[in-house]
């Protein structure tokens, strides 16, 4: 704010300053003042970024350290040579985690669970959202309020009954058990409904006149138009299931073949909890793919996650 005003004052004063030495000096002082505020601003921004990204930085640094040196805080080698660096750093931790502890399997499981769940949940939410946006049907309002009411319930409350129901269905420690109970994404339905309401009715009417079936209207008109929001919802549900730790923890057996990355890491931390270099290399397998996904599609993530919130 103040920077703006100074800018304006600057431009007004420039003409006068050319002659007047006093004004000239004042202008110079202003310039320095501005430089100082700018540097303070950038310093604070950098400190903020450092604090926020510190855990990631620390994870990567520790993952590359020599075994047993997690608590030795020397990061700069004595000599900038291969020997100097290899005294401090190594990539063996990654190899070990990869080879001995089967994190690749956990990784693939996580991919399977998260992508299957995201595909189905997005499809279901898309279909339901379309109906809520564009159709009039019996019990619509009742259903809508039921969804709103259910959304207010804290997720932890579902832990026990969902677990009991899933076990009774015989889905304990199976992919179905991991995926299916979380496929009803109410938030996603609202997101879809909100977006699809902006699709003009005339398009749908025109398609109807051309003899399109309901399913054709949905797949040919609605889905392509809603593509941005579908991608957003897909990414958000993928993210949710990638880190849906508590459900994946309770619904699988320890040592099961279908453990996902966070749960695998949780069981890994039991016997290897003090081997922080290994723990951190294993953590990289969970975090780095997600970080890359975020960097590639960050606008989808940021808008998807915050838009729903502001509406509240």
């Amino acid at each position, binding site marked *: *704010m103040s*920077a*703006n005003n100074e800018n304006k004052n600057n431009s007004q004063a420039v003409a006068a300053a050319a002659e007047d030495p006093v004004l000239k000096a004042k202008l110079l002082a202003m310039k320095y003042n501005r430089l100082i505020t700018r540097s303070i*601003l*950038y310093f604070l*921004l950098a400190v*903020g*970024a450092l604090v*926020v990204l*510190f*855990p*990631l930085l*620390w994870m990567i640094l520790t993952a590359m350290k020599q075994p047993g040196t997690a608590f030795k805080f020397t990061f700069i080698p004595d000599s900038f040579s291969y020997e100097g660096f290899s005294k401090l750093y190594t990539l063996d931790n990654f190899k070990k985690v990869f080879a001995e502890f089967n994190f690749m399997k956990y990784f693939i499981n996580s991919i399977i669970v998260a992508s299957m769940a995201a595909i189905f949940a997005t499809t279901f939410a898309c*279909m*339901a959202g379309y*109906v809520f946006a564009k*159709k*009039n*049907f019996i019990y619509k309002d009742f*259903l809508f309020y039921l*969804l709103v009411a*259910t959304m*207010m319930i*804290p997720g*932890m*409350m*579902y*832990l*026990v*009954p*969902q*677990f*009991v*129901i899933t*076990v009774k269905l015989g889905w304990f420690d199976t992919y179905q058990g991991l995926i*299916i109970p*979380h*496929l*009803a994404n*109410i938030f996603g339905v609202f997101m879809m409904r909100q977006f699809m309401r902006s699709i003009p009715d005339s398009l749908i009417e025109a398609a109807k006149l051309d003899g399109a079936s*309901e399913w054709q209207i949905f797949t040919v008109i609605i889905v392509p138009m809603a593509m941005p929001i579908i991608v957003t919802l897909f990414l958000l549900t993928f993210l949710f299931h*990638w*880190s849906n*730790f*508590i459900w994946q923890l*309770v619904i699988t057996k320890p040592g099961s073949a279908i453990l996902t*990355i*966070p749960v695998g*890491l*949780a069981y890994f931390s039991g016997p290897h909890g003090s081997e922080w270099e290994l723990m951190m290399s294993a953590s990289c397998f*969970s*975090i780095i793919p997600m970080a890359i*996904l975020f*960097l590639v599609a*960050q606008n989808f993530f940021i808008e998807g*996650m*915050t838009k729903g*919130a*502001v509406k*509240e």
Partner: protein
Amino acid sequence: MAKASTQSQENKVSYLFLAPFLIIFLVFLAYPIVYSFFLSFQEAGTGYSLSSLEWVGLKNYFNLFTDIEFLWAVLMTFYYAILIMPLGILASLILAILLNNKISFKNFFRSAYFLPNVLDMFVIGTIWTLIYSKDGIVDKFIKLVFDFFTYDFLGNLTNSFFISLFTMFTQGVCYGLVLFFIYKIYTSFPMSRYVKNEKLAHMLDILVYGVAFVLVFGSGGLLGGASKVLGSAVNNGVLGTPATCMPAVVFALVVKGAGFGMILFLAAIQNISEAVYEAADIDGCNEIQKFFYITLPLVKPIIFFMAVTGIIGALNAFTEIYAMTKGGPIVTVLGKSLGATKLTGYYLFTKWEQSEFGYAAAMSYALLVLTIVISKVQEKVLTPED
């Protein structure tokens, strides 16, 4: 007749489209709430298996309200919420205000601040466990700070005069900075603004800012107390000490989640018209006054939203506790050993672990009622009246 048939056709089509979602919703979201209600009147009998549930009436609820561990968990959940709400709001607001300037690399900073939001909570918790652990980086840093603030420069005067002088000087700078901030706040909000009587206003000035001064500088005050608390954490690591474990967990979460609130605040701040600030400039407001009288009231809806989600988040908190403290460290209250970070979510999980499904269901219901009550109260207190 024709209209009725198109309506029934529409109903049919609608429910066909709804079917996949609705089936999952009914089986795994709606039914569990009803089922949970019945479950809360039952108890797993011999062997604690699901096949041997017995009807026990209101027993679970009676046990729940006399269960000190549960009441403690509720208390700790409030503590957690009370810590995380203002800190989260403050951190997000600061980041938003910093980003709301004309800067280069704006997108870089925005993504950097938001990035931790999308990362797996369990893994982030594990990383913080390493950072906080005994002999970890935070532990080392705290030892340094503790040595610094408790350095007895009079006692060491003879040993190394210049080191003492240096410590005295840097301490002076630290205290001076805090003093400067108190003074700044005083000049922005003198009591004469709120109280007509001038003498009374001066007395109130002395009283309020004097108390603030004593609270910060007095022995056992903010600075001394903080360094003492930090110092006591040195022996067990930050997460192993009852006084510091909760703030440490909360700090990790605030750092992870600040980018989310930042985006919300940024959108709200950018909606504020530049003209309002210019008018304030003409009236001679300083930056602090502009913040409190213009920015803050206009971002109030976001603050309300974050307060509500803060409470829900506290009741849902599990993964961070599981990753970082597993409910510990143990504190003894009223002769009972209780976990200092055993929040309701984690307590619920331990009951699940012990296969006490009925008890856990009863607890879920009690927490649900609590959530509804709290959000109603928050709505009353925090909603702007306009």
